[in-house]
């Protein structure tokens, strides 16, 4: 059982394997670039950047149907929208689980699409 699902993506491109492979690679590159940025933004409590970047990557996580990450990214995006109610400890924890989950997915994707 994979942690991601390409059904939606496949629907868009009507099963175009080359396009799917390109999109997965784009996703891997993007997440590898964005995760450290989010991490350092959390470290210095720059919630605005955390919100912007998580908000940016949320649609791609939805589209690739990464079940474990979907509720987590949603939670971070929503919690960082309203700065007054942020619980740093809770958020750091949520991000840690999200990071683990995404990294697992990326490992799978790398095996599947970037041998």
């Amino acid at each position, binding site marked *: 059982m994979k942690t991601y699902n390409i059904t939606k993506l496949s629907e868009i491109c009507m099963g175009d394997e080359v396009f799917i492979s390109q*999109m997965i690679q784009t996703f891997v590159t993007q997440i590898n670039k964005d995760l450290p940025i989010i991490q350092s933004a959390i470290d210095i409590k720059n919630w605005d950047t955390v919100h912007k970047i998580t*908000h940016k990557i949320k649609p791609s996580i939805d589209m690739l149907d990464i079940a474990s990450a979907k509720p987590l990214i949603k939670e971070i995006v929503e919690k960082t929208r309203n700065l007054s109610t942020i619980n740093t400890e809770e958020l750091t924890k949520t991000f840690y689980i999200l990071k683990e989950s995404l990294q697992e997915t990326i490992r799978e994707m790398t095996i599947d699409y970037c041998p």
Partner: protein
Amino acid sequence: MVSNFKIFIVEDDPFYRNVLNYHLSLNPETTISCFETGQECLDNLHLKPDAITLDYSLPDISGEVVLNRILAFDNQIPVIIVSGQDDISTAINLLKKGAYDYVIKDDDTKNRIWSIINNIIEKNALKKEVQDLKEQVKSQFDIKTNIISSSKAMHRVITMINKSLNSNITVSITGETGSGKEVVAKSIHYNSNRSKRPFIPVNIAAIPSELIETELFGHEKGAFTGAMARRIGKFEEAKDGTLFLDEIGEMNLGMQAKLLRVLQERELTRVGGNEIIKLKCRVISSTHKNLREEVTAGRFREDLYYRLIGLPILVPPLRERDSDVILLAKHFAFEYAKDNNIKIKISPEAQNKLLHYHWPGNIRELKAVVELACVMTDTEEVNPEHIILNSHNTLESILTSELTMEEYKIAIIGHYLKKYDKDILTVAKKLEIGKSTIYRMLQNNLI
């Protein structure tokens, strides 16, 4: 179809950008450019995109600012805001600012953008078509091509039309039936600065007198039995275009008083209503009657006459337009031939026959006669026998042939001889001439 429809995709997430790009590229009519930041998009506006999909949260400039700058550059570009936020107030705010549509990023986004883009393409095609048709109508009524004439009489009319173009003066057109009064009115409208506005013709003679008021001024719901809904009248329909009141001489006196008030005050109220509506249209009236005489006879209000007369244009009857008959006949034959994909020309003898007729029905009659002749001929040439003139031979029609006195004499005696079965004695008695005159003509083979 619009080919090469340029779409800008402004999206910072490369994943989503590629998905949109891939999906929209499936439409062969589109060319797509992708931008990561708002600034990049703004820097490329000179490429004139036909539509832009704009991500609301961009890394450099906020979506709202980008939208404002795009619209400041060209407010005709449809901008579709694509956002991850389903915040209604943001959406309403952006739509009020001039965004074309607001789409939330979810599984259905691509389909929605696809249909929005298709709508824009369709709308653009329709806009272009309307524009083309407007141009076409305008060129149809270009004075040079629309009024076919080389005669001095018409030259005066064209001078008057040109004078009327640059002012808003009321124009009154008089002329016999079929002489082209509506063509003149349309020429004025489509060559004036109102050409892109409506031209509304109203034939007063064709509307029952009790309905003219609601036809011209409109009515409110419930103004009278059967007034089920509000209806706007021709004056309102014409907006800031031209209202053409054809056959104004047929209007009854009661209605004339109402029309006079509207023209004087430049405002009207719908039948059964209170709201005052300002009059913005130009009024052109026409009649085949002599309005001056109608005024003297008490059938037309003098005050309305002076209100309508403005710039008077008298369209001459066809018989006073010299060789225009031939020019017009050739034009109608050409048009007929073009419509029916054939070749046709009018023989010199046939042209002569057309010239020597008095055309009581003017150009309308000429057109009908020429078209009938084109149908009657079996060859590519119209000859005199194909030209069937319907009007009765009035004295005037005989005089238009411009013969010498001697020729008229021969024609008249010939006619009588035919009528009375060559009974020379009876003819001489009827015409009160000597029978020897007839004998002499017969001897000289003149009859």
